[in-house]
């Protein structure tokens, strides 16, 4: 059997603030759409810690913005749908992948494309000794508990999907920053989410360095997606574009609070 290995650019594990992280994903999507760069896989984390909300959510409904300010947690609206996510600077590895539509990794069936791309995460967790599976619509679960959330958009002929892998999970901090419908149920919510969400640390009983997790994921995406990764940086065009997009969109109050 001949396995077709497509070349993808790999942007190695790096750290940025929320605005830059979201702007880089978008800049990559545009560059891929213009054909100036290879389809791209990127790994990153967030510092300061941040909350991102789905593009159809209301910022003030979902997030205690004052509390975030107080704790130095950034807030940002994504261009992708899905829910609010707390990105802990020490507890999460995020990936993004930008692939032209019609590529075998980006079929027109959206659910199918989630499943294909999430296989990189599932294999990565497997290599760490964790048995995970895809849970439609857009989650990866371990024994019924969510360990990874994913979201994609399709614009300019490109599929952009980004998602998280929880390495450590702190529901107390998360729920101090997210709004709950009623203060009285905050503790109940925390208990419930502990039953529904897990992390690599929780599954293995020990913490792993984020760099190590990112390295495993890099290997597993390469194998599971049958792609050949070529490590490279962002082009100067992408960097400039990302700066512009960060200023115009992700650091812009009107964007973040538009709904």
């Amino acid at each position, binding site marked *: 059997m001949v396995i077709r290995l497509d070349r993808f650019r790999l942007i190695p594990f790096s750290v940025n603030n929320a605005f830059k992280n979201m702007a880089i994903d978008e800049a990559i999507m545009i560059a891929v759409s213009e054909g100036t760069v290879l389809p791209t896989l990127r790994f990153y984390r967030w510092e300061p810690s941040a909350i991102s909300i*789905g*593009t*159809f*959510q*209301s910022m003030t*409904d979902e997030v205690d913005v004052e509390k975030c300010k107080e704790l130095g947690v950034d807030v940002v609206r994504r*261009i*992708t*749908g*899905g*829910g*609010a996510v707390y990105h802990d600077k020490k507890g999460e590895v995020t990936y993004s992948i930008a692939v032209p539509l019609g590529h075998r990794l980006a079929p027109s069936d*959206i*659910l199918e494309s989630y499943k294909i791309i999430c296989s990189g995460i599932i294999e990565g967790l497997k290599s760490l000794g964790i048995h995970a599976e895809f849970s439609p*619509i*857009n989650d990866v679960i371990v024994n019924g508990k969510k360990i990874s959330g994913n*979201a*994609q*958009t*399709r*614009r300019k002929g490109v599929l952009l999907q980004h998602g998280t892998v929880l390495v450590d999970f702190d529901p107390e901090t998360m729920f101090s920053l997210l709004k709950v*419908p009623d203060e009285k149920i905050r503790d109940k919510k925390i208990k419930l989410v502990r039953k529904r969400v897990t992390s690599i640390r929780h599954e293995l009983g020990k913490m792993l360095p984020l760099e190590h997790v990112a390295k495993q994921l890099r290997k597993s995406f390469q194998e599971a997606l049958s792609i050949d990764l070529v490590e490279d940086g962002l082009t100067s065009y992408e960097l400039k574009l990302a700066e512009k997009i960060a200023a115009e969109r992700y650091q812009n109050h009107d964007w973040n609070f538009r*709904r």
Partner: protein
Amino acid sequence: MQMIDYKVPGGKLLRIKAEIQDGKIDKVMILGDFFVHPEDAIEEIEKSLYGCPLNKNDILERINRIISRGVSIIGFSAEDVAEVLLQMK
């Protein structure tokens, strides 16, 4: 502004905020953790509902008109939006 949350079975959380006046939808926002492709379509759906009489057929017809332009919605359906809106007065 009225607000109703609805967890779509097998889907996502839908939060609808609307103002109803004289049996018509005056203003509506469809919020939640769902997916709409292309994303801009959500605003077109909301706009299409302005002035819409509060009955199921009219609501469905207006939403489906936008969806038929090649919009994919994952996590809720036009039916769900109509059901929630019809609970408002």
